[in-house]
């Protein structure tokens, strides 16, 4: 049996496939008999408006669950206010927001594009990467490599 997208019980027996024009993709909704009955949906009798309101309900449920650890902004709040709370929201909810971003911008990433960054920022990024590598080396007890990395970090920090 499948999981119901609304009550999460494993007794979903109705599967609805709908084309979402905004997201330009097919979306599948799974419902159990009791959730479908409560909303007046049956395989013989369903209207687009009913399905759209179910999609909104599912989005709201997902939005309440996904939350930024740093600023506590939920996905639902972002969709409602069109405002993210902090840079970490993009890390935490970036994947969930990809469809929305694609809808606004027709693209979902800024990769492969040249970005003007200063020497100082370049060094900061190198240091951050090296620090991550250092942690891995220490946890693997590769102390020789860790010593080299530590010196590299010190040299970059002095510049």
């Amino acid at each position: 049996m499948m999981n119901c997208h609304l009550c999460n019980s494993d007794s979903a027996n109705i599967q609805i496939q709908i084309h979402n024009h905004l997201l330009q993709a097919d979306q599948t909704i799974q419902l159990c008999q009791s959730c479908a009955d409560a909303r007046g949906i049956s395989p013989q009798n369903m209207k687009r408006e009913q399905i759209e309101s179910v999609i909104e309900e599912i989005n709201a449920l997902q939005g309440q669950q996904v939350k930024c650890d740093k600023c506590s902004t939920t996905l639902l709040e972002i969709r409602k206010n069109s405002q993210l709370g902090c840079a970490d929201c993009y890390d935490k909810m970036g994947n969930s927001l990809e469809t929305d971003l694609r809808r606004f911008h027709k693209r979902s990433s800024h990769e492969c594009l040249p970005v003007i960054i200063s020497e100082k920022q370049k060094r900061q990024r190198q240091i951050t990467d090296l620090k991550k590598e250092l942690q891995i080396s220490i946890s693997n007890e590769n102390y020789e490599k860790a010593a080299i990395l530590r010196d590299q970090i010190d040299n970059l920090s002095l510049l």
Partner: protein
Amino acid sequence: MSSLPDHFTNSPLPWLNSTSDCDSIVLSCEASLSRNLQGIPFPNKASATQLLKGQQKVQNALMKLEPPLFPYSFALADLRDLDRDLLSERRLLPANFESFSNDQSYLYCSNDESISCLTNSEDHFKVSISGKDNCLNEISQKVQQLDFQIQQHIQWAHSPKFGYLTASPLLVGSGFRVSVLVNLVGLELNGQLNKTVTACNRLGWNINSLMNDNERFPGNIYQISNQRTLGYTPEQTTRSLQELLSQISSQENNQRKALAFRSPEKILDYIGRPYGRLLYSHLAFPAETLHELLLLRTGVQLKVLQNLDIDDINQLITDTMNAHLNYHQLGTHAELAIEQVRSQKIQALIAE
């Protein structure tokens, strides 16, 4: 009484150009970059202490710029409503600034108002450069150079996947917004405007009214700006707008020529009506007056009104804008309604 320097209250609106050429379609353009500080939540979620810290960081970076660019700085919380409205009419503050401003929102401005920075508004930092006529490439390069200079002292929130991170997902990526103000009277009079607006929207461009009110378009002036920022560099966006603008300009010029050739009376009537209303009205209301004065301005550019000077009209538009007029009339002419004062000012120029 006055808390803004005289320059801001008396000089003509910076977004009105002085070109009295009949081919003049672009009034002015503006390019802006929105940025946020690394490690501090965006203004809508930041605490008072975090906002203060962010403001100090940005201010320090701006003070280190060589040569100094911003002789004027205003704490928005210290300004009166009237001052803020006046700055909004000059397009130095966004129309929706009230929904985002807080105690640490500051506006920095250059001498000629062409460069401005807004801190702790929707994002921690927004720098805008504007210019008269079509100078898109120049202002787009300038705003990026300025951002690069500021980045020597400050680190912006950036991710390899999403580019520069902004509070609004509509700006993430380049954080770059570029816009032009265009006068599309020819397309409007020939009923071709809807086609152009639909085509622009489909191509990823927003068309808004001058005053961000999308029901009325005073003086047939439209603001075209980019919708898309993620996955596009500022150069790509500027180039696309330049291409779009050259197409719209050629369409508009064709329509103006067609009008002048086939039905010049249509233009004469279109400009003559507001001229008569302004000349004989006794109460001039702000929105209506702006629309009618902008039409007179178009009349001067199309050589329909030969006896008026474009600079005089620009000054009159400035002086009769709601906040500008209220600013100068505070405490004086108490016996007259502000609409009467506005009407008298207009008639003093036109009746000459």
